[in-house]
């Protein structure tokens, strides 16, 4: 007796869940205010494009300000993307791609042996 082959298709999102949420910032530009943008700023801080803010609690705001625009431009330059200063689809796609944890610009993981 031949038993029909059962095929189970498991679909898995190919992007990290946290970073996948960044799609909602697509097309944001300087002056935008989008709830949760501080998370994206943390991403930029993690990989060396933004410094921790000087405000009292050291928290990022949800405003696409001049400093963030500079960070986006630096990111685009560093990743070989068109430098627009906006969160265009190519930039968002690059941000969501799996990557190495070493900082792109700063000495975040730079260390010497002790």
């Amino acid at each position: 007796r031949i038993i029909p082959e059962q095929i189970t298709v498991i679909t898995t999102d190919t992007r990290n869940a946290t970073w996948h949420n960044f799609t909602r910032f697509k097309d944001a530009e300087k002056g935008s205010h989008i709830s949760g943008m501080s998370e994206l700023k943390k991403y930029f801080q993690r990989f060396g494009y933004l410094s921790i803010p000087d405000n009292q609690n050291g928290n990022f705001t949800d405003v696409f300000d001049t400093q963030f625009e500079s960070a986006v431009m630096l990111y685009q330059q560093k990743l070989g993307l068109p430098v627009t200063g906006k969160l265009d689809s190519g930039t968002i796609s690059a941000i969501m791609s799996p990557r190495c944890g070493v900082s792109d610009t700063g000495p975040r993981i730079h260390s010497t042996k002790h």
Partner: protein
Amino acid sequence: FAYFYGRPRWERGSPMTLTYAFSPSNMIDYISLSEIRTVFERAFSRWALVIPVNFAEIEDYESANIKIGFFRGDHGDGEPFDGVLGVLAHAFSPENGRFHLDEAETWAVDLEKVKSKVAVDLESVATHEIGHVLGLAHSSVTEAVMYPSLRPRSRKVDLKLDDVEGVQALYGSNPNFKFSSLLESENSSNKG
């Protein structure tokens, strides 16, 4: 190509031999150790082909120059891993030698055999992280091994001109290395 701040490199005389070892306790069990060894041997040999540095595997993890292991979440170095995809791995600049891979990834040594949509090619990541261990930072050249991102199910293991020029500026050239062989390889892959 780019370097870490201060342009650190290994200082071990010439010819230089760097030892590496796998963690006795932080490994994955769905790929055999012999397969992992083979993958890393190939990855190290690519760099050894272009610079006068040899890499030798040893058993003693603690005394190895380069310490390789798979870790999950917060593993004590201040750079916690984040689960599936996101950050895949990280390594420290010379002469630290720590080389960490995110245990949560679906690591693959043969993408033909692993069907997962989130499979990550171990050899590609290993080759990239060895570049960090040697002192290279991230490159802006999309095709370079030292470019910071890698899509799931993709493979990037061949050093490009940018990678080679960067690492040779740190360590000099392997006397047996010929740039023409690299250019031939790049031309053939472009045609492909």
